């Protein structure tokens, strides 16, 4: 069977097929696929027996439920007030410079997507960012370069 179909079936078996299990199922798909494609949204709808438009409507409401393709690692840099005051722009420049992409873009090898996000709850250690679920704080351009090159090495390329 096609892998997305069976992934969704497994998730539905695990969480249940009631409406209240929609978010965990969507989160589960993203964990594997990095985003919710139209195809997977339709599959989720079928599996849970709810209209696909409901799945789409719910998915697009949440900023972490990406409905456009993203890379393996999604970098979210906090742009809210304290991070903005403490040097978020320099951090962002450093990332763009290193990955050679602009905000909102994904690297051609599909590994990194760069986004901004709202307050991450680390204002006392601003500026902050998340890479997937991992949080990094008190960032400086040097520090992000180190962090990113670690990620790049993990993937065996630089």
């Amino acid at each position: 069977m096609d892998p997305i179909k069976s992934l969704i079936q497994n998730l539905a078996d695990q969480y249940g097929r009631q409406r209240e299990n929609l978010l965990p199922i969507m989160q589960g798909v993203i964990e594997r696929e990095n985003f919710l494609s139209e195809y997977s949204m339709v599959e989720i709808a079928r599996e849970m027996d709810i209209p696909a438009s409901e799945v789409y409507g719910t998915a697009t409401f949440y900023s972490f439920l990406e409905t456009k393709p993203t890379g393996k690692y999604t970098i979210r840099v906090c742009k809210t007030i304290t991070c903005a005051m403490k040097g978020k722009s320099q951090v962002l420049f450093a990332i763009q410079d290193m990955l050679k992409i602009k905000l909102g873009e994904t690297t051609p090898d599909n590994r990194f997507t760069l986004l901004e996000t709202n307050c991450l709850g680390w204002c006392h250690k601003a500026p902050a960012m998340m890479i997937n679920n991992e949080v990094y704080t008190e960032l400086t351009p040097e520090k992000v370069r180190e962090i990113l090159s670690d990620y790049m090495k993990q993937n065996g390329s630089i």
Partner: protein
Amino acid sequence: MANSYQLKRVDFIFRNENDWEKVLSTTIKKKPQELINELISSELKGRGGAGFPTGLKWKLTSEAKAEKKYVICNADEGEPGTFKDREILSKVPYKVLTAMAVCGYVTGAKEGFIYLRGEYKFLEEELNKEIAEFEYYCKEINLDFKIKVFMGSGAYICGEETALMESLEGKRGEPRNKPPFPTQAGFNGSPTVINNVETLVHTFTIFKYGAKKFYDLGVQYSRGTKLFSVSGDTPKPGIYELELGMSLQDFVYEFGDGDTKAVQVGGASGFLVPRKKFKDAAIGFKGKLTGISLPTGGSMMLFNSSRSMFNVLDNYLEFFREECCGQCTPCRVGCQQLLLGIKAVKRGDKPASYLDKLLRLTETMQLTAKCGLGQSVANSFSSIVENFREEMIY
């Protein structure tokens, strides 16, 4: 009196209580009514920002007739400048779990949820371990209560209690009309107690040490202690437990960098207080404090004179524009227009008097927006524009 008030640091919340099992087993031997009375006499109010009396919330839910009831711990901490709930959940999670179980016992709920914001996903695993251990103990003392962690997915509005419930039901997190209130019809239509993480920990303190201990802290109408998340231009960013009722002057004396020009109390949805009003402002719920009383969910952001208040407001408005759920027109259109409006004034495309029109727009939003988000945009907007008008123009 206010001027003689000093900042008082307290240590209840993060104090390590190795005897939570004993606290739980002795508390649930008391009658629910007795515990509700205890909470009511402590005068504990919700620590998420809205300040509803906690005892009353529990009482209303316990009186509601229904087959199923729920307890929800609101850990969707998203207000810019707050980071206290995360610390609680990572340092003393067992206090939160104990409080939820006691709440279940008092109200008749057998199930609880912790709605954790997506940004705190890294806490999930540890929390689930704690829950497993906790539930094991509950079984031993014959307490029937289950707790589940539910992950949010990046939406500030889901901190609003009814939006949170919609989200928990697998829908878009759009706030509901009230009434009915969650105490009557909450998650899946059942009576539900929804409390902030910090509020639950305070109930633990009250059940362990007695209502009087809590009541004796703080000032009239603002009892007890509160966790403050301090950030911005301060040499001491971090989390502090302080008695309620302190004057902002004392706060700045302790946490300022000597050049504090303004403090934003309560995050983006709170109020900005300029230097000349520090003396008259006190931190606590509405009531007879000195001059201005400022309620807060705990966010305290300091700005020194190197900061442009235009940039601050611009950043807040962008935040609201993005986080508005889009359900009602005053908020959806209002947030956009406010942002466009201040930019237009700054560029000189609109005269300074346009700011007054925008102020009127925030009044309309305050009156007609459906939930706290749209209603509270007026707080930061008017307090910044009125106190730093020149910075908006030049």
